[in-house]
């Protein structure tokens, strides 16, 4: 068996996977705040447009990674939708744009029922964007570290954790009752998500310890990389978990939670980059020499 670290995908794809997840989660959580937590219409409009702007910025990196970026229009030719996660992702992203923008318009004109249904559709698509980024990597059968059902779950949880961090930033400066209420709801949700993420990471490495050679190599690469151990695990997960848990028990602690959110946002990017970087092909012996 020949183990070879992948080099086709790098920074650009990692940035996209991160911003795609962050944008989708911001869109979904922002609309949730407006529809179910009595946040103002401007909060709904602002966060949905912010989510779509983040997603758009991410898509630029995806296009730049193409062999010829000018051929990006071909991505709309989704003939492979029956089996390809890029094609399915394109449809989900288009759904997020269409429903997200229609929701923003409906919220502006206060078409209550129409706004609600468009909001739910946009939330569904936003959730889809966060999930598909994991499924995208999951489809690579030659890279066993990616080809596990845990990866889409990990990316979805991480995306929503970064989405919570973004929403907390948006809410940090506001002191009205609804904002306080939603801030603490999001803070609690983020504590749950970070805990879940730690559990998934633990399960991932326990699986690697018992697993096949390529998964072990990927795990070794990560554990030997300070960006992963110190950067992601310590500063991107454990530190914000402790800080947010502490902040949730104290009054007037939004600054601390906002600082923890910054760590979560950096950690989210590190996770995407490191998982992409640590992809190791497991070629049958002889193929790689």
């Amino acid at each position, binding site marked *: 068996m020949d183990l070879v670290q992948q080099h086709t995908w790098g920074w650009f794809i990692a940035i996209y996977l991160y911003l795609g997840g962050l944008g989708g989660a911001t869109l979904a959580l922002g609309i949730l705040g407006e529809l179910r937590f009595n946040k103002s219409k401007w909060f709904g409009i602002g966060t949905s447009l912010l989510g779509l702007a983040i997603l758009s910025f991410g898509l630029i990196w995806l296009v730049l990674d193409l062999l010829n970026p000018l051929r990006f229009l071909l991505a709309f030719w*989704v003939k492979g939708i029956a089996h390809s996660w890029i094609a399915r992702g394109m449809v989900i992203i288009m759904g997020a744009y269409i429903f997200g923008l229609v929701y923003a318009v409906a919220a502006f004109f206060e078409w209550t029922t129409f706004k609600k249904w468009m909001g739910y559709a946009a939330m569904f698509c936003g959730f889809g964007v966060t999930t598909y980024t994991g499924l995208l990597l999951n489809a690579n059968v030659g890279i066993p570290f990616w080809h596990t059902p845990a990866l889409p779950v990990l990316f979805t949880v991480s995306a929503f954790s970064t989405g919570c961090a973004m929403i907390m930033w948006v809410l940090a400066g506001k002191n009205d009752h609804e904002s306080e209420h939603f801030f603490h709801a999001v803070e609690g949700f983020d504590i749950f998500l970070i805990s879940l993420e730690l559990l998934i990471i633990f399960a991932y490495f326990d699986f690697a310890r018992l697993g096949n050679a390529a998964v072990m190599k990927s795990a070794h690469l990560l554990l030997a990389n300070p960006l992963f151990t110190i950067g992601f695990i310590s500063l991107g997960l454990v530190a914000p978990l402790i800080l947010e848990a502490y902040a949730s028990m104290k009054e007037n602690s939004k600054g601390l939670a906002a600082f923890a959110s910054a760590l979560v946002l950096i950690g989210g990017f590190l996770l995407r980059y490191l998982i992409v970087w640590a992809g190791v092909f497991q070629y049958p012996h002889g193929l790689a020499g």
Partner: protein
Amino acid sequence: MARYGMVMNVKTCLGCKACMAACSQWNQTPFWAEDGGKWRTRVTELQEGKFPEVKREFFPTICMHCVNPPCHSVCPTGATYINKDGIVLIDYDLCLGCGYCIEACPYDARYEYEKEDLEKDEFYFGEDARHHQVHVDKCTFCVDRLAEGEEPSCAATCVGHARIFGDLDDPKSEVAQLVNSGKAKPLGEYMGAQPKVYYIK
């Protein structure tokens, strides 16, 4: 309609790499690229065993033209397709150049035909240049030669009879007999892609 496949006899491969030369000339693959070139077919040199029980082996590889190809599964635009003879091909006009298929292929059969490769292709082959747009490239079993009743260039040029090409559905063909007898086996069966290139080791 056929079901084309190939048998690689590792025992008789001389390591002359004439197959690589023939393929790269016929298909104009970027033999000029850095780090040893980009190839549709390769012959890797393996050192097996430990001193003093050591031997050198030559290992020919190519696209496995899988029945269930992961590269086809992930292609968003339908650029990768399987023709009526079971050959996995790429429609260059539809290729987005996302590299998803390169990542998905568990046999390292694909590479990027980049802008600088196009320039070199025109430089070396002039009017006969066959690549005019950036795309992902891979073995086609020389589908253009098959249409004219000829074998793929690698099999046609192999001096050691290490590459045996034919129709797996024709029980009289040498490939079908080698495969059906169980002498030739595919690589990495556990991945479920069902390759149609088999190896005698």
